């Protein structure tokens, strides 16, 4: 049996730890690990930027912590993006965030405790970035 938890957020500055606590139309979803769940078995993460800053080049780091994560904070690189000069013409390229899916995560967790999910963009600011992260518990 598995359960899911999804959070979203925006990163608007590099090298800044950003807690992901929203969920679209749900402003404060529960971050409590569902009862009976003992592991994080998958992580799905995506990020895309508006590329409205020149010469952006970043990688994205996911941090999983909180009282539910046994063994301390776990840190995972899940993507990267870059852009040259801000484009203004009709040939501007989009930034498409195909989800990164890690299928064998195997992180021990404590059910009914709280998980803290944060992300960072490390490198040179590419503009605003939107992120979404799903944890699959079992």
């Amino acid at each position: 049996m598995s359960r899911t938890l999804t959070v979203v957020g925006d990163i608007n500055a590099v090298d800044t730890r950003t807690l992901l606590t929203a969920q679209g139309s749900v402003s404060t979803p529960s971050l409590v690990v569902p009862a009976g769940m003992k592991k994080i078995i998958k992580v799905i993460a995506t990020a895309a930027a508006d590329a409205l800053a020149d010469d952006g080049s970043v990688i994205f780091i996911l941090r999983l912590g909180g009282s539910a994560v046994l063994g301390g904070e776990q840190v995972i690189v899940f993507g990267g993006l870059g852009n040259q000069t801000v484009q203004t013409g009709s040939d501007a390229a989009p930034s498409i965030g195909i989800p990164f899916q890690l299928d064998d995560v195997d992180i021990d967790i404590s059910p009914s405790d709280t998980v803290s999910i944060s992300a960072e963009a490390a490198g040179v600011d590419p503009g605003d970035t939107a992120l979404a992260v799903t944890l699959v518990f079992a």
Partner: protein
Amino acid sequence: MPKQYRTREGTITAVSTKTQLSTLGSETAPGPLLVPANAKTLKAVISAFGCDLSVAADGAYIIRLEGSGLPEGPETLTIGSSGVPVATGGVYAMKANRVELDIPVTPSNEILIFAENTGEDTGSTTVGVTLEFGM
């Protein structure tokens, strides 16, 4: 064991707003998506999206699964993201993504599928979701 597949699609036009996926291409009213009889688990979710890139912005897309067909309660999944620096540029194509799960289901009960554009409003985004049931 055999599997069964059920699909819905729809278009998101507002940010941070639950939008039910209730159509199926040429079928404008396919009716409720019911868990197949004898299904024991939601074994996987397959999703794809396409944004018209009509706004210079960036957003991430998630889906929600709700309804009496899910006895443990609602589930949520990340399906992707997009952004573009001008409202007049960009074209892309991508394959669907499959996430293997093992979520209990209640046969013959309904599952409602919703999609959302989180972050900034990126324009109009069409989302398709297939539920893969294990028997």
